[in-house]
């Protein structure tokens, strides 16, 4: 099969609204997490979040109409349009078969919640549920081709990459857009807070997300979107456009253990990583960087470190590992999409983005950390882990563009 590469990136995140801006922030070790105080049922409630304050206005939209759209849609539309422009395909989009794969953990719930918050009652009006986020993107941007919404909680976007790559390989599309859009809605945050999965370091919110640190106390929920244009490498070369990275491998597995609690057994996560490496035809020794799933929960980080130890074996202390969730927060279904940007930044700049707030590494997370500051390192191949509720484990391998 011919290699499939990324030729366009569009994104809106708490760290910026373009690949370059986000990569700069990640390499600089900038935190986007902050304290949010909101009123819920007449009470002031604190949480730590990393939010997109303002989604850029997409070209061609009226500002008032744009701001009336749900944020989830605005982030997705901005990102897809920007990715097509970046790939120099925007003006040709109606001549191409453009596939679309959107990672979505619980799309309808997001629509219903937004509508309810705006005074609607759409959850009780099924006749109004006629459009998916994917069909809205197709309709608004007038792109035609197969589409799919895939969901595996926090692993959703890695499935989107895998499916999009396959459609390009098969030739059923000319190019395929893959990615995800996620909002940090208050009910979802409440769900995680009640699970005691969120950090409560309210006195130092920018230091709350601290994966692998001995004093980690949970994750910070974030939001944002990142979309990517995938096409055959030969097509990218012929068009003379930028090739950010090759989508080289994908692996997935299930814990078959629990709907919520991460599996303490490292075998299933290790199986996903090994499958991705095998798919990419690379060895653990080829890895120059691992972007860990590591959210900052005590159990999950430890289990992932153990799985990494099994996969990396003797290369464990030679392979840099970081969790960029320390800066972005956890973007849930869009996490893998934004973390692909971190991997591309590492491949592109030969710099490893750090895990910030990692002051005291947990001895049970015995891997080669990149605490605090980015480091220079040779990276030809990067691995991005994303694990979701329901024990859905995924790993994506990205290779440096040649």
């Amino acid at each position, binding site marked *: 099969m011919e290699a499939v590469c990324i030729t366009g990136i569009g994104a809106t995140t708490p760290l910026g609204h373009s690949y370059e801006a986000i990569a700069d922030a990640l390499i600089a070790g900038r935190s986007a997490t902050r304290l949010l105080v909101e009123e819920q049922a007449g009470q002031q409630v604190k949480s730590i979040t990393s939010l997109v304050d303002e989604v850029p206005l997409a070209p061609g939209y009226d500002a008032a109409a744009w701001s009336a759209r749900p944020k989830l849609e605005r982030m997705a539309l901005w990102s897809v349009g920007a990715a097509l422009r970046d790939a120099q395909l925007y003006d040709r989009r109606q001549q191409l078969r453009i596939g679309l794969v959107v990672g979505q953990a*619980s799309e309808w719930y997001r629509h219903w919640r937004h509508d309810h918050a705006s005074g609607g009652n759409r959850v009780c009006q099924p006749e109004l*549920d006629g*459009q998916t986020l994917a069909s809205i993107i197709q309709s608004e941007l007038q792109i035609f081709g197969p589409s799919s*919404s895939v969901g595996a909680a926090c692993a959703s976007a890695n499935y989107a990459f895998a499916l999009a790559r396959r459609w390009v390989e098969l030739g059923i599309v000319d190019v395929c857009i893959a990615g995800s859009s996620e909002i940090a809605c208050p*009910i979802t945050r409440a769900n995680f807070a009640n699970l005691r999965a969120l950090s409560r370091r309210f006195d130092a919110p920018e230091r709350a997300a601290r994966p692998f640190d001995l004093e980690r106390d949970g994750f910070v929920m974030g939001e944002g979107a990142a979309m990517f244009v995938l096409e055959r490498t030969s097509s990218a070369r012929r068009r003379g456009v930028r090739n950010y990275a090759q989508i080289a491998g994908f692996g997935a597995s299930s814990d078959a253990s629990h709907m919520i609690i991460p599996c303490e057994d490292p075998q299933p996560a290790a199986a996903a990583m090994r499958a991705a490496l095998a798919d990419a035809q690379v060895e653990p020794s080829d890895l120059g960087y691992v972007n860990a799933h590591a959210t900052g929960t005590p159990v999950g980080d430890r289990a992932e470190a153990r799985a990494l130890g099994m996969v990396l074996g003797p290369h464990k202390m030679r392979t840099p590992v970081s969790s960029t969730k320390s800066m972005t927060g956890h973007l849930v279904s869009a996490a893998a999409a934004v973390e692909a940007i971190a991997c591309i930044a590492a491949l592109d700049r030969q710099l490893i983005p750090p895990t910030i707030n990692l002051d005291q590494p947990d001895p049970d997370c015995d891997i080669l950390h990149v605490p605090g500051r980015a480091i220079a390192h040779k990276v030809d191949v990067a691995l991005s882990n994303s694990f979701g*509720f329901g024990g859905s484990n995924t790993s994506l391998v990205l290779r440096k563009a040649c």
Partner: protein
Amino acid sequence: MLAAPPGVKLGATIVAAGEFSAPYARLTEMRRMPPTFAGADIAAHFLKHADEHTIAVIEAVRLALQHGQLDASQTRDWAMLSGPRYIGRLAAKQLVTRFDRQGGSSITTHAASQYSLNSPAAAVSIVLGSHGPNVGVGGGPWGLADGCLTALSLFDVQAVPGAWLLFSQWDPEPIADERGQPTHDCTCHAVALALRPGSATDGPSLSATFDAPGAPRPLIRSGQSPFDLLGREPMVWDLATCVRNWNSGLPTSWSCPLPGAGQLDLNLPIEAGSARLVA
């Protein structure tokens, strides 16, 4: 762009299928008494917080195993794909009402894990002890086509020995009161298809045939949905009828457009000497 060879086709063999339909009240009973079946292990409380879609899908899997004379252990490394249409609608009404009245502290810790697109797939992977991939797909309009396309593509993405393709849908969609109970009669339909990669020439199969690269295609006009370009949307109960017929010894087939790509075909013939004929 590189042109694909015309008529690219993906296919899978259907080795078993099950369908199950039940009204809300029956699903509530099943929540308290999860089904038991060989090779699977379900704790008594496993379905306590599960969405009704998940409960119906697990029963459809049990029936598929029974019809296909398969043991759960034979599907240990299989992928799980679930396409629950509008999962969590009943619970969502209760969640938003509670949140407004009592704030975040009233929100269940099970919402994200039980009302997501992959929740039924994840639950079945736990029930069957399967370590293959688990993912949700579709979940809304034209989700059936979405799920079939993704399942067929996934066989090429991951070298799995098989996949469970699980669909569920209410008829009609429930409208919930503030406690999350339906205000009218509604039935949840679920279908479980057990797939193996590669389709047998004349055997039971699911396949997707894609349009050639140069095939004429419509332009989506501003404000027009891609769904407007298609005919009647196939529903889970259409698929359930096919499966019911097949399991009763009647050959059946079904086709639907693959939005933006081509056509899907389900072919369920009755082979000579088949256990279905004997039945």
